[in-house]
């Protein structure tokens, strides 16, 4: 169980033959993910450690029946790689690349959403982009399409995890593991200002997933994704949700590593996020370990 990816997901890797692409292809394979092919324009026909390399996503999809693509293409070509996958009707696209120009992401995200709507209107399964600048996603014991360390995601669990931060995702997953709970699916949505999938997009999937009992949302300062999530939870979620917000002590106007983590004027303040979660009756952990206590409390209510 879990959402978005599982044992049957057939994954291609755009940029497989690069350093990052190669090492993470190996790690995904070790995890048990069905990595079926790589795409590197100009290297079509190559056999790369047993994987066939294609010149284009369309060719790779045609040959392998892939339904997920993970992208390790350098920043200048990353948005184009997303569009290539989207136009090839790959239903799930994970953009790992960090440092993609924001304007490129604006254009790509808008176009992917249009293609998604078009696909759905014609009875298709749509097109979803996750990221960029994200660690990917993993359904414990089934498939990892991302760059998170394998070992903290082996033990199947029933807590869904969504996060804007890579390292805090690992941290949270480990805490849940150590507490004997484990995660169902972990979705790293990415720390950039413009991303393909937000908290509010992922929450309904967890709500509908029989393998998930509760959800942990790891937010941070900047933007209003947490507020949108709180609003969605208030109106639609029956399963318990626990939140954490990092960067609560960061000053306004300073960009905290993630391009999206910046308080501008009244937008993106921890106060606003805390108030929104309070309004939605979502408990917010003050520290990472407190997440465990809150999840336990929520599950035992």
């Amino acid at each position, binding site marked *: 169980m879990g959402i978005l990816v599982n044992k049957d997901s057939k994954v291609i890797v755009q940029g497989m033959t690069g350093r990052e692409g190669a090492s993470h292809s190996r790690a995904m394979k070790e995890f048990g993910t069905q990595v079926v092919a790589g795409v590197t324009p100009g290297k079509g026909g190559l056999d790369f450690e047993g994987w066939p390399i294609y010149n284009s996503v369309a060719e790779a999809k045609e040959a392998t029946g892939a339904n997920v693509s993970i992208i390790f293409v350098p*920043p*200048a070509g990353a948005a184009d790689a997303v569009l290539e996958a989207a136009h090839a009707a790959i239903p799930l696209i994970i953009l790992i690349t960090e*440092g*993609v*120009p*924001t*304007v*490129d992401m*604006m*254009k790509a*995200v*808008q*176009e992917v959403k249009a293609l998604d709507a078009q696909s759905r209107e014609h009875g298709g399964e749509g097109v979803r982009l996750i990221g960029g600048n994200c660690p990917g996603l993993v359904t414990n014991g089934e498939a990892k399409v991302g*760059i*998170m*360390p394998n070992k*903290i995601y082996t033990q199947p669990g029933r807590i869904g995890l969504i*996060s*804007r*931060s*890579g*390292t*805090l*995702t*690992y*941290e949270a997953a*480990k805490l849940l593991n150590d507490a004997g709970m484990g995660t169902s699916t972990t979705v790293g949505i990415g*720390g950039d*200002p*413009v*991303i393909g999938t937000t908290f509010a997009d992922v929450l309904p999937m967890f709500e509908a997933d029989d393998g998930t009992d509760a959800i942990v949302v*790891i937010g*941070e*300062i*900047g*933007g*209003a*994704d947490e507020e*949108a999530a709180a609003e969605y939870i208030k109106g639609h979620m029956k399963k318990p949700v626990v939140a954490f917000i*990092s*960067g*609560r*002590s*960061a*000053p306004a106007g*300073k960009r*905290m*590593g*993630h*391009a*999206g*983590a910046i308080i*501008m*004027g*009244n*937008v993106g303040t921890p106060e606003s996020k805390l108030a929104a979660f309070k309004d939605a009756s979502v408990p917010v952990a*003050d*520290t*990472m*370990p407190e997440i465990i206590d809150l999840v336990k409390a929520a599950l035992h209510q």
Partner: protein
Amino acid sequence: MKLHEYQGKEILRQFGVNVQEGRVAKTPDEVRQIARDYGQSVVVKAQVHVGGRGKAGGVKFSADPDKAFENGEKILGMDIKGLTVNKVLVTRAVDIDAGVEYYIGMIVDRNVQSFTLMASAEGGVDIEEVAAETPEKIVHYRVDPITGLRPYEAREVAIQAGFKGNLNKIADMMVKLSQAALERDAVLVEINPLFVDASGTPIALDTKFEIDDNAMYRHKDLADWREMEAEHPLEIEASKYGFAYVKLDDGNVGVLGNGAGIVMTSLDVVNRAGAKPANFLDIGGGAKAEIVYNAVKLVSKDKDVKAIFINIFGGITRADEVAKGVIQALQDGILTKPVRMRIAGTAEEEAKALLAEVNSPLIQMFPNMFDAAAEAAKEANK
């Protein structure tokens, strides 16, 4: 990358925006010469990368060339929030009373996944104040990033914002602002005040322009504009190493970790422990000993730092590499402040063994981040 006013204006001019004429001066004599050339009253404006230069005395109206010289003398060399003024922009003055001052801006807006065009008839003041006090006076409009703002949309926004003057010319300036933002990869561009003179013609009097660092590779012509002296020296050094580094005011604990999220949380934890973080420093994933060494070196240079808190969650990053980097810094005499660190995960035991070997009171390792932060805070507050 933040641009100076004169640089932002140069870009807007390239896109056809009607920008108030001005020239850059580095000496009071040059200021006087420009004022003479213009043959009219001028404004002398400090070019520094901080807000509030007006309140700090960095912007002065000058009725004649001698007065301009005098103001140039005052402003050049002035210290504004820790930055020295090396350049001023001398512009023709306008008769503000003979027109109106508006605000227009384009800003990356996470919530609409594109640029939002902002327009307000309340120009000439800090727009964040307007946003806080009378948000209804700002019109927000999502700009399609693929097509850019179209003239008819710009007119609609101008009408909604209650702008008076030549509607087509004002809309045209908005369209060009949008083009500049999209083609030059702005994070933020503002024209404030957008002065509309008695004839209805719009003129950009001041501008803020900030460019997406991720996109600098395709604006090589702007790279020369990055003026190192105008930024915090440690931020310059950090950018050489490729670190995400932010200097924070009034701090005493240096903070570093692997990943933006974990470092942000580390700031929170230090705060909670009763100390103040002196910086944000993300060394990234999979860091080797040398990178850690450089990070420690950088943070150690900050005189505000009394102790260092290192917070590593080892997935790709190996704990022993972190330990090696810290130990090397100690052995090279670079590290003279107490380091309290938490390293979880990969090769944790190897790290412990290395530290045990060195056995220095300056370096201590803790099983969780709270204990490490608490100890760092204790050292810093001593």
